[in-house]
């Protein structure tokens, strides 16, 4: 059974978090993500959860990592400037394999930029923003319905892979109101249980994910952002240990690339193929609807990182990929790495969506 609602994206995200069992939210107000914090401030305490308005985004990120180790399903929400502040602790979460969810309702940057306008300029920052090598998961919703569903999915992926997971929404989706169908129950995937007696950071299984030794359960785990051995003890000067640890942190995500891939393929035999994620998906859908041309394909990506490169191979006849993005071609460059045919980036900055006419012009322009 489902129940219809008419919500804006940020409300849907907050409700998705509640449905997923989020029990801790640490946040700081920032346009255009504030509604998520406001909604959870009202709803979380009634469900036995904790809402903390922290003193800044650095503290927000830190608090959800702490809460996650204490057993909570923890989340924060922010936008560009706050996201930049969180970067150090995002690296910490990746290094210590802490499950947590960060919602970034993207706005125009750099710097304070356009607080009330839409953008997708943080797509590379989310993947590479903190120092050192690591891997994370990033999801991009294109509808209010997906705001809800992907938030739930973020929590499940975070707990399953023990990694920070990002919901990379944008101002358009965050503030847009549309009809959404709320399911009665949602799927919940928990953390892998810890086998007592094992070293806390030994990943014996082929999925490279160690069990989660939650605080307060008597496992005496030491969690450190320093390079650590499988007991969790710092061993920052061992080259081999560091190599093995960082490789494992990256491989546990990269190896599961196909398992977690989430995309739609429309007209796989087409020669001209649009690829989009987030708000530009909506413009491409309009073009697809208007043209009804089997020669125009569309790859709609929901899990952007790790990038689903196998999806590109489904378009066997593709002569050209067209990538409308609300940045200067961040994911277009990633796609260029994987395909041999020309990749045409259709960037748009400033906060307005691509118009269907712009996409049609790009489609008709000769390469």
């Amino acid at each position, binding site marked *: 059974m489902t129940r219809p609602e008419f919500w804006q994206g940020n409300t849907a995200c907050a409700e998705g978090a509640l449905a997923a069992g989020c029990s801790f939210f640490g946040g700081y107000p920032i346009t255009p993500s504030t509604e998520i914090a406001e909604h959870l401030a009202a709803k979380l305490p009634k469900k036995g959860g904790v809402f903390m308005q922290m003193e800044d985004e650095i503290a927000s990120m830190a608090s959800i990592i702490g809460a996650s180790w204490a057993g909570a399903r923890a989340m924060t929400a922010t936008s560009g400037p706050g996201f930049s502040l969180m970067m150090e602790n995002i690296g910490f979460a990746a290094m210590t394999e802490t499950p947590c969810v960060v919602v970034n309702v993207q706005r125009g940057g750099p710097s304070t930029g356009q607080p009330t306008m839409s953008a997708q300029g943080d797509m590379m920052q989310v993947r590479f923003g903190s120092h050192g090598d690591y891997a994370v998961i990033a999801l991009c919703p294109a509808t209010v319905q997906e705001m809800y569903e992907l938030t739930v999915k973020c929590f499940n992926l975070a707990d399953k892979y023990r990694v920070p997971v990002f919901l990379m929404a944008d101002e358009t989706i965050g503030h847009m109101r549309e009809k959404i169908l709320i399911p009665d129950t949602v799927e919940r995937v928990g953390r892998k249980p810890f086998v007592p007696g094992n070293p806390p950071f030994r990943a014996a299984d082929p999925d490279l994910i160690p069990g989660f030794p939650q605080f307060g359960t008597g496992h005496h785990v030491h969690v450190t*952002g320093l390079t650590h051995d499988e007991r969790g003890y710092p061993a920052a000067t061992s080259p081999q240990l560091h190599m093995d640890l960082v490789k494992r942190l990256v491989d546990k995500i990269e190896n599961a690339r196909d398992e977690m891939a989430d995309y739609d393929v429309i007209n796989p035999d087409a020669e001209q193929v649009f690829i989009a994620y987030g708000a530009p998906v909506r413009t491409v859908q309009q073009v697809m609807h208007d043209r009804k041309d089997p020669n125009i394909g569309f790859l709609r990506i929901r899990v952007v990182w790790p990038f689903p490169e196998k999806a590109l191979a489904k378009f066997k006849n593709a002569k050209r990929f067209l990538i409308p993005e609300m940045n200067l071609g961040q994911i277009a460059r990633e796609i260029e790495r994987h395909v041999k045919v020309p990749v045409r980036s259709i960037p748009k900055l400033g906060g307005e969506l691509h118009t269907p006419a712009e996409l049609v012009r790009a489609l008709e322009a000769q390469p």
Partner: protein
Amino acid sequence: MSFEDWYRQDRLPHIFCAGCGNGTVINCTLAAVEQMGWKQEETIFVSGIGCSSRASGYILADSLHTTHGRALAFATGVKMANKGLHVVVFTGDGDLAAIGGNHFIHACRRNIDLTVVCMNNQIYGMTGGQGSPTTPLGCLSSTTPYGCAEPPFDLCELAAAAGANYVSRWTSYHVKELEKAVKAGLETPGFSFIEALVQCPTAFGRRNKFKQVADHVEHLRSHSLLKAKRDRMIENGEQIPAGMFVVGELTRRNRPAMGVKP
């Protein structure tokens, strides 16, 4: 059981230099925790970055060694997500007062039920002795080669002004008093702040005329002024000699606290 049983024996000896006061402060803290009768599985030690913050890694309990300055923010998350846990934070002067200054005053303002033990060596020890926000005026460090020109923070007054329920200051010389102060902090609901001045022979003493570890400890002893005596001196209109710092229980009150186990 004694406080020795709270150490991860397989990790000792620790990385602190010979004569460093941090080990003493950890002893005193653990002795206080031991007296509280807390179980190891429900006590969490959180720390930031720096010499002092390595402490959490030597303790046989769940411990979180976090990013520079953010220990209190992490500890807030741990405590609020599970109020049944006892959370003790180890931090240093640079970690707490410089990069973590904002988290410090806000944790005091929230009066969240944490006990913070700050090992104040008046220097950035781990990076080789740079001036910190608590380096006394005129003291030499690698970044204040002509003497520190900036007035230092009084961390205890800062904590009291920001709203902490319990504030006290001792030194690594006053081990018994420090142990009692930490215990009082652990017993107090709300934010408890215990500043422990410690000697740093490698980075601070070496540059500031404390050739021997004992010289620095003797300086800490001779320059500490009991709060009761300080109050008496003020009452009598006496001048408090320069270079003295007040030790003792400076604040104890009962503001509404956050995160206390119901």
